[in-house]
């Protein structure tokens, strides 16, 4: 079987037959992970940080795109650059720290130095080095990533030049970034200090799916639901947002090009408080600024996935999480509490408490998810044919006339909406279609196969 046929077979996507299956092997085969790293993670747009993480000249942070080390720096003129974190001399990591502020980064191995614009300023003992002329004329600056763009302070980089402009890539998913950013009086987002890193022993696509999976909530998080109910009964939940009586309760999703999707729900009364609701005066002011419709959506649960590895969850708090695969069955997660710049101290306190309550391996909900991924990973090893894991919502086909999309002014490729227990799975499909397209493109192009 050719590699091409093999990738094609991994996603069985037949809308006409109302069929959609992802092969178990997509979660367990290390050869597939190698292809994913090269042709998805290291070839597509990747979230690398927020501008507000490096607000001042010479501020820097380090991260990874796939396997590759990345250094983001703000130079002396205030421009942000994104570079491969590797010395041009002998490949050493130029900056070994997570974050800080430095005018120069000096490689500790042989002392080569780079300024905060990535320019090579020192080659130690260059004159005595008997270098060939070709070296003296060479560009020895830090290597820039192929593409680097910013949307609302969210910085994205691509190691391949063959990507659409960021704005086109994000498409109407941008409306859901706006719904978080516009909660800020100055329209900016920041991370609450304190990054949490954790791992789970399972394939990264389990996290990709889970962020779009409304269906699991009541079963996987049954113990958390009990706690929420108990808090509501004892009156310790704080104020809970409510929907207007003319809103139909339900659960839905929008799917976009390039694999992005968002799932959301309309509940008569939310189970959680919201930082915005703790500050009625600001909420009223915001309503004037952004309008009734967008306030309504700001207060609804929205789980946004930007393919392949960014999720922004705006519920009782806001979480921004990214991941990178370490192995076919091991994933590293990075989680931040995301916040509108300029919110009140009390809203911030509530945001942080709610974030800790829900998210991270130490939270009361995410820890359940992590264990579930590991059970799935073990189960996917069964040579047992396709699962029925991607079928909810297929009977309806894409609904294009949803009033929900219209009121937001967006044109998703699919709008799904159902009863509160709907939990559609068709919002995973665009991600798998993009996944297959990127892997197939590589095979079709006959690149370094």
């Amino acid at each position, binding site marked *: 079987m050719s590699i091409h046929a093999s990738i094609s077979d991994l996603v069985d996507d037949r809308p006409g037959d109302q069929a959609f299956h992802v092969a178990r092997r997509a979660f367990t085969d290390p050869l597939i992970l190698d292809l994913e790293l090269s042709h998805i993670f290291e070839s597509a747009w990747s979230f690398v940080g927020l501008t507000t993480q490096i607000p001042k000249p010479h501020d820097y942070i380090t991260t990874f795109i796939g396997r590759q080390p990345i250094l983001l720096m703000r130079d002396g003129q205030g421009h942000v650059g994104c570079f491969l974190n590797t010395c041009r001399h002998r490949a050493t990591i130029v900056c070994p720290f997570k*974050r800080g502020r430095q005018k120069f980064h000096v490689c500790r191995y042989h002392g080569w130095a780079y300024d905060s614009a990535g320019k090579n300023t020192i080659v130690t003992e260059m004159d005595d080095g008997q270098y060939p002329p070709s070296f003296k004329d060479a560009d020895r600056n830090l290597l820039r990533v192929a593409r680097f763009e910013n949307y609302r302070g969210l910085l994205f980089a691509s190691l391949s030049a063959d990507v659409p402009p960021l704005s086109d890539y994000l498409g109407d998913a941008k409306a859901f970034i706006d719904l978080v950013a516009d909660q800020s009086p100055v329209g900016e987002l920041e991370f609450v200090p*304190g990054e949490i890193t954790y791992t789970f022993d399972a394939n990264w696509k389990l996290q990709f799916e889970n962020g779009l999976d409304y269906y699991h909530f009541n079963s996987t998080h049954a113990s958390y639901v009990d706690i929420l109910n*108990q808090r509501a009964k004892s009156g310790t939940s704080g104020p809970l947002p409510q929907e207007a009586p003319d809103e139909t309760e339900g659960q839905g999703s929008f799917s976009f090009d390039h694999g992005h999707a968002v799932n959301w729900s309309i509940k008569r009364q939310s189970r959680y408080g919201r930082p915005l609701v703790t500050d009625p005066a600001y909420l009223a002011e915001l309503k004037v600024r952004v309008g009734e419709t967008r306030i309504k959506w700001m207060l609804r649960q929205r789980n946004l996935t930007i393919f392949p590895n960014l999720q922004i969850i705006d519920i009782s708090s806001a979480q921004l999480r990214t991941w990178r695969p370490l192995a076919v069955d091991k994933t590293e997660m990075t989680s931040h*509490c995301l916040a509108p710049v300029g919110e009140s101290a009390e809203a911030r*306190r509530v945001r*942080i408490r709610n974030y800790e309550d829900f998210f991270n391996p130490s939270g009361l909900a995410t820890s359940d998810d992590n264990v*579930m991924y590991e059970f799935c990973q073990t189960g996917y090893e069964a040579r047992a044919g396709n699962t029925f894991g991607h079928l909810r919502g297929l009977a309806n086909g894409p609904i294009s006339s949803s009033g929900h999309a219209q009121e937001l002014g967006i044109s998703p490729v699919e709008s799904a909406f159902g009863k509160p227990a709907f939990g559609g799975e068709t919002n995973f499909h665009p991600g798998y279609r993009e996944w297959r397209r990127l892997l197939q493109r590589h095979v079709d192009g006959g690149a370094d196969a």
Partner: protein
Amino acid sequence: MLERMSPDLAQRKQAAVTILFLEARYLDDKEWDSWAELYEPDAEYWAPSWLDEYDTADDPNTQVSFIYHDSRSQLQERISRIQSRKSITALPLPRTLHMISNITTSEEEDGLVVARSNWTTHIFDPRVQKQYLHFGTYEHVLKPSDGRLRIARKKIIIMNDRIPSILDFYSI
């Protein structure tokens, strides 16, 4: 120079050591209710995150923590989640072994005793047949109450903060 202690201080220091070891024993024996009873009703239980390679968060209201609770009832919520048998994280529960050492105590005003110690928790998770450990430092603030000491505040620094899958009150 050896520390000179009054018999009273020596007694309180011994009481502090006893409560630290008792807490570890309750956690490892899964006697959660007795564990929670070691805490004052308005106790602060705090495991801060790390801000960078060197510093942990120092303000729970403006920075993220792994866990921050400001009452015993929030610890009891965590216990109820484990006991409900509805959380998959507890099916089965990992086996844990807490080791505490290098205890130093100092006395504050109002009879509060501050105990600093080093801790290690060895964890074996039968669910995945994996073992790992967490380690760090504790700072207990102990308050005399009804003729015994109770925990008024506990700060837990987790040195190895890249967390495998789950972190709960029994694993730190």
